[in-house]
């Protein structure tokens, strides 16, 4: 067992984990932040994407101990005083989800795409960079639309 401490959504958190505990297990099972989903557990689907030290990672493919001392942002950390993050709002406005299972990972990846490519990111780049996020429902068109709208809104 090891003790891990990290900032999660701006608050210091710590806990006792097995060496093999995945970051996603720590977030969901110990911190009860169940917005981060596990779709495949084999690094393919992106439902588990969170930000660690400012960049997107698949939290099913990182150990909790590897995030020790880091800054983690999950889907729960985006809204501000009950107001949705512009990217969350854009998914809502553009019907960018159906069942919603992939959505937390999509939103976290979308914000990472905007952080890297700027708020005028083009459609081809959005489609290419959503490569690691799989959606079983929407057919992606409205997700791409939502990412675009969210990118514009994030630009202010």
């Amino acid at each position, binding site marked *: 067992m*090891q003790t891990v401490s990290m900032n999660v959504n701006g608050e210091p958190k710590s806990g006792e984990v097995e*060496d*093999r505990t995945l970051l996603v297990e720590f977030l969901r099972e110990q911190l009860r932040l169940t917005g981060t989903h596990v779709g495949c557990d084999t690094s*393919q689907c992106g439902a588990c994407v969170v930000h660690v030290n400012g*960049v997107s990672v*698949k939290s099913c493919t*990182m150990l909790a*101990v590897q995030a020790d001392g880091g800054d983690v942002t999950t889907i729960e950390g985006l809204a501000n005083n009950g107001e949705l993050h512009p990217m969350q709002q854009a998914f809502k406005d553009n019907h960018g989800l159906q069942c919603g299972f992939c959505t937390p990972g999509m939103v976290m990846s979308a914000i990472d795409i905007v952080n890297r490519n700027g708020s005028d990111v083009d459609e081809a780049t959005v489609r290419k*960079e959503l*490569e690691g996020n799989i959606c079983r429902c929407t057919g992606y068109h409205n997700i791409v639309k939502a990412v675009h709208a969210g990118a514009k809104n994030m630009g202010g």
Partner: protein
Amino acid sequence: MYNFSYQKVSSVADAVDAIKKADDGKFVAGGQTMLPTMKHRLASPSDVIDLGGIDELKGISVDGDTVTIGAMTTHAEVAASSDVQGTIPALANLAGNIGDPAVRNRGTIGGSIANNDPAADYPAAVIGLGATIKTNKREISGDEFFTGMFETALEDDEVITAVLFPKAEASAYMKFENPASRYAIVGVFVAKSGDIVKVGVTGATACAHRGLRLEKALNGNFAAEAVDEVEIPVEKMNSDIHASAEYRAHLVKVMTKRAVEACS
């Protein structure tokens, strides 16, 4: 995943010490191959030694015509590096097309090369550019490093510290990617400096190799047509659900032609 004992070290010397003390130790870099492999129970090390805290393994530098990339440098860092883009743009492009953004944020060049997946991208560049792999013990030439499927010249307690890429006058990497994983079904890296052409091929056979027949044809005539008459030995090609051996042999030529065209 079976349990193991995890340890983070802060120097190469400590990493080597830790692996020597372990029963059945393994290094972990980005974990993008290691963790899935352990979940599948294809690997069950007693000790996992994390190289992520070793500063001396990180970073990119250019010295004359050589780009040195530390083993723990991520694919995302290589793709975004103005040094790499300015010296060997094909290498930055290659890194930016590995997997997806989240994989690129964790996966490292050292891990990719040490793992030597038959469909990995970096090995084609290591061979095509004639790179040198630096370890805590020695320097190994790209041609001698990849020895078989998931097999390399590395010893158990040997750590890759950096990869040294010589600049080429022109180079390009073309991959025919698996539409689901983005791994290379076939990938070809072509590099030209003066009259010398080198070709690194990945995805096609048990591990990345030099395309000697292609080099021979291109050395005399650096043009896509020169590839037409080259015979690719079908019996050496991989065959799986993604592509037959015949199809891969065909793709080797098509990707080479595209890479040659992209060089000029």
